[in-house]
């Protein structure tokens, strides 16, 4: 997985006071990409039964979520915790 851009999410309201950025990837996310994100600390949910499977990694101060096949995933975080997760190794 290669991250090519980060954009402020237009849907921050949905997270009720959190900030969020959408992280854009060079290729659509596959199982291997999602597995590689799993090393990030937090509870991991992967709904493989869906036609477009959904995954989420959740910690107290952030949520990472996305859908297999999309070329982006979302990183939502409490305002003072943006730096809690580094995605540098994917850039």
């Amino acid at each position: 997985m290669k991250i090519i851009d980060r954009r402020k999410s237009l849907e921050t309201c949905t997270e009720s006071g959190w900030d969020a950025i959408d992280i854009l990837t060079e290729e659509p996310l596959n199982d291997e990409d999602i597995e590689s994100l799993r090393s990030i600390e937090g509870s991991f949910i992967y709904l493989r039964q869906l036609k477009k499977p959904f995954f989420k990694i959740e910690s107290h101060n952030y949520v990472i979520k996305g859908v297999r096949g999309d070329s982006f995933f979302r990183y939502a975080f409490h305002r003072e915790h943006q730096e809690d997760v580094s995605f540098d190794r994917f850039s």
Partner: protein
Amino acid sequence: MIYFNNAATSYPKPETVKKAYLDALEALPSGQFRSALSCDDADVFSLCRNRLGSLMGISGTDRIYFASGSTEGLNVIINGLGINADEIAATVTEHNSVLRPLYNLPSIKGEPVILSCDENGYIPPELFENEAKKGRIKALVLNHCSNVTGAIQDAKSFGEISERYGIIFILDVSQSAGCLEIKADEWGVDALAFTGHKSLMGLQGTGGYYVREGLSFIPLKYGGTGLDSSRILYEDDGYEYEVGTQNSAGIAALSAAVKWIMDQGMDAISEKEKKLTGYAIDALSAVGGIRIYGSGLRERGPVVSFNMDGFAPADLAYILQNSFDIVTRSGLHCTPLIHKYIGSAGKGTLRISFSCMNKESEIDEMISALKEIAG
């Protein structure tokens, strides 16, 4: 794509609305009082005002003013009455378009009196009367239809209480205009704010407000009006409220939208949306692990809020949108105070909201998606 976010912005728009907008862009520009070009019987502004008046039961249509939407309208009204916040009553069902002006406008002081609601989002008028009796309240701002539970407030009773105690009655019809009956004059409404882009089926950035004849208020903005250009200073009264160049193409589209609603028939639209809402509630109730908010309401607007066990509303909305192409909305819905009372404090709800363009088959698809997600 299935669109269930009509309480935010209705989509799609009627064909006549699109045509009216494009026609307005092709035609010579309309300008209120600024050009001989507008001196014909096709004055888009007056026509739209008259149609809005017919739809909302307002006879004094010349006191309907255009603005960018109800947020601007509410700011103008709340700022303009010259009343401090601690003399204003509002409710926990209010949108931030009411709460934020009340708490932040530099021109008004103190904190408003906030009336609570029951678990369905309904506010008993007696609560208001109890406050009114104390003699301090000078104005009430009431959300007519909740954008969270769909609860429809008894505006007529609130109007009667307001009249009895000499309180200015301000009604926010952002969610009800175009889908529910409004009788502003009959209900004793002194001021009202509406937006064009929801059930009125117009464009984003259109809407406005109404202030009845005889109720003086100070403008929030000053500028060119095309009337008496030699006058610079306004004192006491005789103010003008539509300043700057108006969004004539948007107003032409809004006018066409209101005509479309009247042609369809308000009753027919209301009945169709009521059926869709009832159908959705019944279908959701049959899915395990779903809690519907405001399920005890007998009458409601075309809005259903719910949560599903094991899923944050934001996650459920994300999955529905990105895995199933179903557009909903999650969170607090810009209405932060109601959630404590209906049991959705913290993360809020997932909300689906309908227009008369939606179909039962779309609800069936969403239910299938929810069952698949629930596993």
